[in-house]
């Protein structure tokens, strides 16, 4: 069943968490965007964060990957405190962030974009191995490897973005608005790829406005509203939850 957060089940859920976020407050300047947000992701899970536009989903992801830092609270990854670690150091520890809007390096080729994903020292050693896996996942990228990123279609760009994220050799892959602006066919293909990635033991944290779809794909989900986690639980249970149905599916 979906549950509202209580201290007790928070502790329960925290056991064996790979990524653990403990009541963080995040500000943009003087504007508070996240309020006491807690969340945890266990190794091997696919966890979704669902919510409307402007709810703070992207901010939450940016705080996890170190682009932003919380004013209060604590973020732990694999037992290490990463609350104030720089974004460029967090990658090497094993969190790879696929940003909203793909954000490929437009004037670089597909292959160069993938290679730069393996910039961190640990990933460099496994570069060729990871590249082979990315090509296996998205064969089209092998065909397009020498094409400039900006010349690809939106779907292919998203594949490069996910591939680039995987090249960092992550334990957790964070993906922000993967399906935004893409056709349902492509979205299906991408979700299939996510299942593959998960089957390889990589933990996935997914943010989506496409709540319906996300809840069907994820193991667990958090629903965020105006900067606060309002619901959390097993993704399939959340689909049945009345509040979710009313807010997102209009039924």
């Amino acid at each position, binding site marked *: 069943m979906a549950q509202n957060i209580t201290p007790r089940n928070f502790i329960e859920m925290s056991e064996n968490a790979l990524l653990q976020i403990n009541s963080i407050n995040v500000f943009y300047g003087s504007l508070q965007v996240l309020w006491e947000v807690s969340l945890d992701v266990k190794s091997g899970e696919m966890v979704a964060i669902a919510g409307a536009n402007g709810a703070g989903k992207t901010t939450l992801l940016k705080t996890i990957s170190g682009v932003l830092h919380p004013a209060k609270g604590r973020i732990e990854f694999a037992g290490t405190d990463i609350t104030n670690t720089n974004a*460029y150091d967090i*990658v090497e520890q094993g969190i*790879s962030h696929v*940003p909203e809007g793909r*954000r490929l390096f*437009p*004037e670089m080729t597909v292959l160069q974009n993938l290679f*730069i994903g393996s910039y961190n020292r640990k*990933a460099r050693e496994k570069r060729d191995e990871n590249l082979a896996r990315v090509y296996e996942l998205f064969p089209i990228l092998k065909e397009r490897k020498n094409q400039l990123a900006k010349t690809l279609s939106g779907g292919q760009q998203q594949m490069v973005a996910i591939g680039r994220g995987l090249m*960092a050799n992550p334990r957790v892959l964070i993906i922000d608005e993967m399906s935004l602006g893409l056709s349902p066919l492509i979205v299906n293909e991408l979700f299939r790829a996510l299942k593959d990635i998960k089957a390889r033991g990589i933990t996935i944290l997914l943010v989506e406005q496409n709540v319906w779809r996300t809840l069907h794909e994820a193991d667990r989900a958090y629903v965020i509203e105006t900067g606060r986690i309002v619901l959390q639980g097993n993704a399939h249970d959340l689909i049945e939850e009345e509040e979710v149905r009313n807010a997102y599916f209009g039924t």
Partner: protein
Amino acid sequence: MKLLSDLASPIVIGILMGGLYVVIALGLSLVFGVMKVINVAHGDMVILGSYLAFSAITMWGLNPLLWLLPSLPIFFILGILIEKYLLHRAAKMSADAALIIAFGLSLIVQNASQRIWTPQTRSLFTTYSMTTFKIGNIYIPLVYLLDFFAALLVMAAVHQFLKRTYLGQAITAASQDRQTAELMGINPSRVYQIAFGISMALASIAGIFYGLTFPFNPQSGNPNLIIAFGVIILGGLGSIGGTFIGGMIFGLSQTLGGHFLGPTGQQLVPFLMVLIVLTIRPQGLFGR
């Protein structure tokens, strides 16, 4: 036929001299592309490179080309220090602050040069300074040829570095999207230091070849800066090929302008070209 044979000389000289302008412009272009800082001290750094070579020649009788070996690391390290302790701090405040720091550096280098080397005009005079080749009816000074080959070498080296190394790709990535570069594990502060260091090393190469080609004094930096701006505007930012074409156009319009319109044309035509490109294609011929 007469016109053609008359033009051969300004064309060849224009292209060769354009090579020197390419080397001067590359460092400026790199720093602007990566850090979005207009390093108005770049021309003065070039001349500082000329002066240090001048001292090395007069004190130790070194061949200026041999002086390249110590000059490159000296300028590279100087660049890293300037970025780390001055520009970086200023850039954190605002882009204007970084510009003002660069302007301050320009004044410091100009006045220090005046103090150390006097306002007198100098040149890097060597045994081959006066050597010329005669090809057909054209006399080509050896140093012009050196300028051109230096340009080709420097371009190839910078291109290979940016394309083939992780660090070079990190610089390229950071210049296209800084925040995403951070998500790749790239430390932007480090990238900026390296980029500025390389830009300074390029300035020192430019300085040595400039000194071999033209006489210089402490005020020679600003004209160089303006030429570098012209080259970048013509070719477009962020493309080494574009900078090369920009340098060629600038050199050619100087010599051809001089050929047809006299010394006024030599000054006027290149900047007229810059103006035309700015009007028709503001991002430069090869710009994005």
